[in-house]
């Protein structure tokens, strides 16, 4: 029976997943390995922070949309107030999102932040203020993405519940109407 076999999903968007991971991995790898090759802190700083910034942009603008269907941004409205906006796909599409994609998305985001924290602890222990600076910048970028997407996901769940109750309510009323029309 088809039901008994596990359907093995592959990644639905392999290229997006690749880019999602590559910049994070490159920033971490460069930071860790650079001490072996470069003497100059400046290059380490600039390249690591640049890769981290690229990763932030890719996650926020590309992989967030494609892998999990979430998006967050900040706007300044007419009154000059800052408004954070969160958006998600409609719940059907969210339900159809590839599970492997979203697993990869969330896990790599969390793991990267943890990795930066660990590296930061090492730098603190060694009293290297320069490296603490690099790590704090990278960590800020990672945490910004985590917070943004987590808020977005909570918002999406709230919407799904609202939508479901709305649908049930309208189905109920239409059932009532059809029941009355039959009578």
């Amino acid at each position: 029976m088809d039901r008994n076999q596990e359907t093995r999903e592959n990644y639905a968007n392999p290229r997006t997943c690749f880019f999602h991971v590559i910049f994070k991995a490159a920033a971490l790898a460069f930071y860790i390995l650079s001490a072996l090759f470069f003497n100059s802190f400046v290059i380490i700083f600039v390249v690591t922070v640049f890769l981290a910034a690229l990763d932030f942009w890719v996650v926020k603008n590309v992989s967030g949309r494609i892998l999990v269907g979430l998006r967050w941004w900040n706007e300044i409205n007419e009154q000059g107030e800052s408004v954070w906006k969160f958006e998600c796909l409609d719940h059907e599409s969210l339900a159809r999102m590839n599970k492997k994609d979203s697993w990869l998305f969330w896990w790599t985001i969390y793991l990267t932040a943890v990795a930066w924290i660990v590296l930061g602890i090492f730098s603190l222990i060694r009293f290297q203020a320069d490296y603490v600076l690099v790590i704090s910048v990278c960590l800020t970028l990672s945490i910004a993405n985590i917070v943004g997407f987590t808020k977005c996901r909570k918002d999406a769940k709230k919407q799904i519940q609202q939508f479901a109750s709305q649908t049930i309510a309208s189905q109920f009323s239409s059932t009532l109407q059809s029941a009355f029309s039959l009578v």
Partner: protein
Amino acid sequence: MSHGDTIPLHPSSQSDIDEIENLIYDSVQSSQATVLPARPPSPPRASIPVSSSPFINSNIPPPSYQKATVSAPSKQPVPAVLPVSSADFSTPSGGDARQGISSDAFGSPANTLTEPVWDTVKRDLSRIVNNLKLVVFPNPYREDPGKALRDWDLWGPFFFIVFLGLALSWSASVKKSEVFAVAFAMLAAGAVILTLNVLLLGGHIIFFQSLSLLGYCLFPLDVGALICLLKDNVILKVIVVSVTLAWSSWAAYPFMSAAVNPRRKALALYPVFLMYVSVGFLIIAID
């Protein structure tokens, strides 16, 4: 329908299912149309509806569960609405990919990653250039300065700060790393502190907008640092730095002064000037 489903449906439940599907499609379609007006496009950019969805221009009133308040997060399915034009930092261009996901459901060929990415990159670059022109260059047609940096972005400031750090570090003959680190930390921390200063003086400015502004106003000093890098004459350096310093302060003045109470203008502007002066000294004194 699931594969192994062999139970025949009762005729009335089939019609209920059809009705539910129609409801879903209706709500999806109607809410697709309303999301576009919910995000006002920023002034310098014209909205060019490009997407193939037929629903973008209609003005169907929002479905009941969509809150229209400003503070509420804008909701609902966005897919067809993200035509390449509208907007902000995040990108519409993948909107095509999202439309593929939502409307075609299974097995829709994902757009090649390069296409959406290039569009997004182009849009972000054009935003950086726009912001730069708005902030730094003399612009008699500039409207209310407080509103000019509405679409703030931090890419411009990031590049300018890094460039300034690199220029200073390159000019330094010893201790290059320290120079760079100090320059970067000073500029970044300085921008944050200046913003806090304005906020604590009771001014009305948005944190990121102010960070973005102070970063963009570093552009003249970047130019000055580049010139000083190329020509190592002290008198030339002093002249160049004074000119660019005046330019930076002049660029920052309208935004900062518009943000605070007129009686406290000097209190808000003096630290900005001080920071630029110190950067100027750093440029001159670098040996």
